């Protein structure tokens, strides 16, 4: 087996006296769909911020596609193929839906300051190609009809999807989704599961998913890592995780007497 796409080796980060993530070791293979779960405050989003370069680990190393990501800025990591969404949606509020995608497309457009000033023939061709590609992306997600609406005026669920589309526009190899199902109703969650699966196949990328909704996580992930107080307490297939005693303890509290693992 070749080296995994993303590899975390004993990654630790401390904020003052608080160790938010402690010796986290895990990996995401190419095209793999991995879930990261844990109770509130377990360090899941912090792990995302470490992977995307927002934070630097206090110790340990993170490798993406065989290269260390230490000290590399998030924008640079985006250009090598790490894209993400946010727990609390972060769209560009003063831009239209289409422009939210276009702005992410500029990463690989090779366009710049001078060509925008000169507005020559190549620039216009480039602009119309970008617009066409952005629209195609929006069409896949049924968002093309909103192209000229302001991004933050969309319904909640559409904003979540738009954020995913924006992440995809940077042509990632690894997509990090931070609680994509938050605030969705059961049927929207079903749609989301289909969406994530189809994104993975269609765009041929690996997905790392932080999610509270067990149905979603268990339903689509090939591998799940469980965090509690910044430590990984378990890792395995959804089946293994469901009956892992430590996981049950983390979520439900320790039993006074040992009980049979539940059969889900």
């Amino acid at each position, binding site marked *: 087996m070749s080296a995994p796409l993303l590899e975390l080796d004993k990654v630790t980060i401390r904020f003052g006296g608080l160790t938010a993530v402690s010796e986290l070791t895990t990996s995401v293979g190419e095209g793999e769909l991995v879930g990261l779960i844990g109770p509130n405050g377990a360090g899941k989003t912090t792990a995302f911020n470490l992977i995307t370069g927002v934070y630097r680990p206090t110790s340990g190393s993170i490798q993406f596609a065989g290269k260390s990501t230490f000290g590399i800025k998030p924008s640079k990591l985006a250009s090598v193929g790490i894209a993400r969404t946010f727990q609390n949606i972060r769209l560009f509020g003063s831009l239209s839906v289409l422009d939210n995608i276009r702005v992410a497309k500029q990463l690989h457009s090779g*366009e710049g300051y001078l060509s925008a000033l000169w507005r020559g023939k190549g620039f216009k061709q480039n602009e119309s190609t970008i617009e066409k590609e952005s629209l195609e992306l929006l069409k896949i997600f049924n968002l093309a009809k909103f192209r000229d609406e302001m991004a933050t005026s969309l319904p909640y669920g559409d904003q979540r999807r738009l954020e995913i589309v924006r992440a995809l526009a940077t042509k990632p190899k690894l997509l990090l989704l931070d609680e994509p199902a938050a605030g969705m109703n059961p049927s929207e969650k079903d749609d989301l599961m289909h969406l994530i699966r189809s994104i993975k196949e269609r765009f041929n990328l690996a997905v790392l998913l932080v999610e509270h909704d067990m149905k979603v996580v268990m339903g689509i992930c090939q591998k799940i890592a469980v965090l509690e107080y910044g430590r990984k307490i378990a890792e395995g297939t959804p089946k293994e995780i469901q009956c892992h005693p430590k996981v049950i303890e983390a979520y439900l509290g320790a039993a006074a007497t040992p009980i049979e693992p539940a059969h889900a």
Partner: protein
Amino acid sequence: MPLSGAKRWLIVGIALAVLASLGSGYMNRYYLGIANDVGIAIILATSLNLINGHTGQFSLGHAGFMAVGGYFAAWLSLKIGASFSPQTAKAMFPLSLLAGGLFAALIGLLVGVPSLRLKGDYLAIVTLGFGEIIRVVAQNTEAVGAASGLKGIPQYTTLGWTFGLAAVTVYCVTSIVNSTYGRGFLAVHDDEIAAESSGISTTRYKVVAFVTGAFFAGVAGGLYAHHKQFLSPTGFDWIKSIEIVVMVILGGMGRTVGVIAAAILLTLLPEFLREFSEYRMIIYALMIIFLMLLRPGGLFVFKTKRRPTA
């Protein structure tokens, strides 16, 4: 070569400016002076709008960049221009304007790289401090007249230059912003963390906005110097910076048309209020307060829906 919409407007703007300039011999000197002030204000406000409005970086140092460009261009005209014939010296005016702008841009780069790590209020304070440093340096530099000011600058500025360059400034700022690349400025304004994760180098964008803004402020400074024929350090204090910021806020952050209109209005207003003599500035301030209360989103909010680039 067929010209695109934006370029056509640029040509029209410059042509009109040159036409107005040819007719300026028939104009009252007082009105002519105010017209030039208006053109310079448009350049200043539009360029600051790129930094404060579109990119959302609150700078209070625009008068500083204006001073850098103004002093440098004036100094070039006086020192270098003296060794040429008057005609040649006048022909070199655009070069000294350009040099003033480039020098201001260089200073903008030096100030911007360290200070743009700061956000909001902190950045405002740093740029404010920078503006004061420039003023104090000018005040103590004998080569540019120190506290008594730089006198005898040749009068090269015409309506053609001010409004022609105002058209160039508006063209440049709108062209940059209305492109896929330029959407990055707005993205930085909206959400820096999301911008970074979408592959937009926020530091780079901020510095580019800062340097571009400084360049045009420097050019405006050069026009100002060759218009007033006299530069005094006190003319570039922080109140001047605030004036430009007020134009941007009143016009609507990031709204080019509104900002241009506000630049015109705020330059003309004190002139219209002359008859109120000592109450002039009170009325001026009150009008700004009322306008702000009535139109908080920008005085002339023409619905500028952001279209895909033309």
